[in-house]
């Protein structure tokens, strides 16, 4: 009996021993998808492809290099703010969270984020190390509230093989893309007649974000002041009507896929079911990797360009970005130091993240040869200059995006008139903003 007791105590102590090592645990919550089966144990970042592959491998590599820091990752369904809200409300938020720049004001304005100036300074990371667009997006009331990780935008991902079939290729091997609205319709028709497939592959079902992002771009291209007052949207002008009419005409003339949701649209382009995918920077890495394999719809036939300038007033594209924030909570100095180390690691690996297709936020990465030599980057480089976000003082940008997306979708699918949809969108957004 005595032996049994001693044995049990010894086993118990052994089981508890890892706790005595004073490991610091960082709870990291992120979107970007789950890919444990493929990358669960991988630490070779350069071999990883796509957002999920690269971020998973990056965290694995950090954990391997820092055995005293345990990073516990929870993956949430995009964008994950419901979970975060519930966690913040119950005071159980994780230590590090991925967040869109467009969502940060909501949390910062309620004191739910920790300023990171000291944490970054301790790691010798300076505000001037980042691009102006990135650092401005994460700076609120003179303090930095996120480690800027990337900037992203919507792009024209082009299937050159189908464009060739439609006679829409230049001699230099680049596709012929529209430079105004009329050209989009004529080229779209030419493409459709030649291939029997839709010119554009758009995400128009079960989705609101894509509608809103393209609409913002078209509004900004008209130099519209629709959010001049951040607490009030103005969609009553001709600019909003022109933007929505253009979006609707594309669908009405059969130049776009209609019923595809996000995953279906991503795979439709990949399978060669349309000429140009209107989708984000994050797909460049995956589509480019596919184009380097043989015997598929994109083999040796993929290129990517910014959304063309359809309105002559201004060359501009709506952009947003991802950052890492630290939600409000009690944390020891050791834990904050560990988070600092993780952020330094992310900062040092900004190039690896930019392989996804996102634009890097660290100036020296943008200037580096290795970034410049990544495929297609020179074709989309101008976004660094033409990218524009909504004013950061506009709160609830995700909820606004949902409302605008839903109303635009109603007009495009013919359930509402264009005037009616814009009027309702304006009423709903302003009702939301007035009641914050």
């Amino acid at each position, binding site marked *: 009996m005595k032996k049994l007791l001693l044995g049990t105590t010894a086993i118990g102590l052994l089981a508890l021993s890892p706790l005595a090592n004073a490991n610091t645990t960082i709870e990291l919550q992120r979107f970007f998808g789950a890919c444990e089966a493929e990358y669960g144990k991988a630490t070779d970042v350069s071999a990883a492809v796509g957002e999920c592959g690269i971020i998973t491998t990056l965290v694995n590599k950090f954990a391997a290099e820092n055995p005293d820091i345990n990073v516990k990752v929870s993956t949430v369904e995009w964008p994950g*703010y*419901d979970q975060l*809200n*519930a966690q*913040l*409300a119950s005071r159980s938020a994780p230590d590090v969270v991925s967040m869109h720049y467009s969502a940060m004001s*909501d949390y910062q304005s*309620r004191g*739910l984020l920790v300023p990171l100036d000291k944490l970054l300074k301790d790691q010798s990371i300076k505000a001037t190390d980042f691009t102006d667009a990135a650092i401005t997006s994460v700076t609120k009331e003179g303090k930095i509230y996120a480690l800027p990780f990337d900037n992203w935008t919507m792009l024209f991902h082009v299937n050159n093989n189908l464009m060739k079939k439609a006679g829409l290729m230049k001699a230099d091997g680049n596709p012929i893309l529209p430079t105004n609205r009329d050209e989009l319709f004529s080229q779209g028709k030419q493409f459709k007649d030649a291939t029997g497939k839709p010119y554009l592959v758009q995400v*128009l*079902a*079960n*989705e*609101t974000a894509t509608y809103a992002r393209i609409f913002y771009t078209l509004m900004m291209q008209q130099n519209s002041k629709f959010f001049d007052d951040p607490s009030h949207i103005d969609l009553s002008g001709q600019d909003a009507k022109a933007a929505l009419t253009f979006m609707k005409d594309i669908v009405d003339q059969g130049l776009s896929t*209609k*019923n*595809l*949701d996000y995953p*279906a649209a991503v795979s*439709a382009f990949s399978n060669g*079911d349309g000429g140009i995918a209107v989708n984000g920077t994050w797909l460049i890495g995956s589509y480019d990797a596919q184009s380097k394999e043989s015997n598929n719809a994109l083999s040796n036939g993929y290129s990517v360009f910014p959304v063309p300038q359809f309105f002559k007033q201004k060359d501009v594209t709506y952009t947003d970005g991802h950052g890492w924030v630290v939600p409000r909570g009690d944390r020891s100095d050791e834990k904050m130091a560990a988070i600092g180390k993780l952020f330094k690691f992310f900062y040092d690996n900004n190039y690896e993240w930019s392989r996804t297709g996102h634009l890097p936020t660290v100036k020296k990465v943008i200037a580096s040869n290795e970034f410049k030599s990544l495929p297609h980057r020179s074709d989309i480089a101008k976004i660094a200059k033409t990218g524009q976000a909504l004013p950061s003082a506009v709160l*609830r940008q*995700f*909820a606004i995006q*949902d409302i605008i997306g*839903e109303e635009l*979708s*109603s007009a495009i*699918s013919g*359930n*509402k008139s264009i005037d009616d949809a814009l009027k*309702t969108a304006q009423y*709903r957004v302003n*009702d*939301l903003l007035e*009641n*914050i």
Partner: protein
Amino acid sequence: MAESYRRSRWTNGLFVVPYLSVFLTLLVFPLGWGIWLSLNKVDLFGGERFIGLKNYARVLSDPIFGQAVKNTLIFVGVSVPTLVILGLFLALALNKTSKGSSFLRGLFFASSILSVTIVTLIWRIVFIPNDGLMSLIFEFFGWQPIGFLSTTGWSLFSVGVATVWWCIGLPMMLFLAALQQIPKDLYEAAALDNASRWRVLTRITLPSIKSTIMLVAIIQVVMQFQLFGQAQLMTNGGPAGSSRPIVMYIYEVGFLRWDIGLGAAASQILFLIILCAAMLQYWVSTRKEEVDA
């Protein structure tokens, strides 16, 4: 001498304390709190300010809420009778002791154990354009494809089909249990009287399981009014809000817009609607019994 067991003592009340404490903390308190929140201007992270019935006025004048109520009523009005009739039909067909019927009972009940995520994934594969099952069938017959998840009218229908498939197990099992309670001698007497199958069904079977039909209907009304997961995952309430149920409106207002006061007001209205629907159903059934008597 032993004390009479009939004598009432206050300590006997202690037996209900565990239940009462759970009932009070998990049901009564949240209900009261919800009503209080609905009278305040409050977001997810505080800022409480009493505003009386303003949230109710906002909800009731919101056309999106009106549309959500209409969608939910249509959904309940179609899905509940379908679940009751189909559940009863399956129970009648499988009320046998053969191995085949036991297997089929298990098969029909199997969908109930799946989570809403799996159910919607399965039905997405059926309804999605291009590679979906329905799309392939339409293509085979050369018909024009239908955007089941992205067309007004069809989107709520598709959510309904997935819901009936998912929820059919419970009504079927409840009806089976009720059918097996009916005394066999009633059927023997009917057989001796040479009663037709229809007469047996309408004069013996259905009257004997009347209370179960009521129970199933009330359970389903309460459940289907709370439609959320299927609509959110399959159609996201679209297109044009045509498949947005009330609970999704509450979720959007509370969690996406952080307007907890408004969400709480909408929740109280949903609570009243469900209560009224269940009471109405109960009243209709008991009134009929009185008339019969």
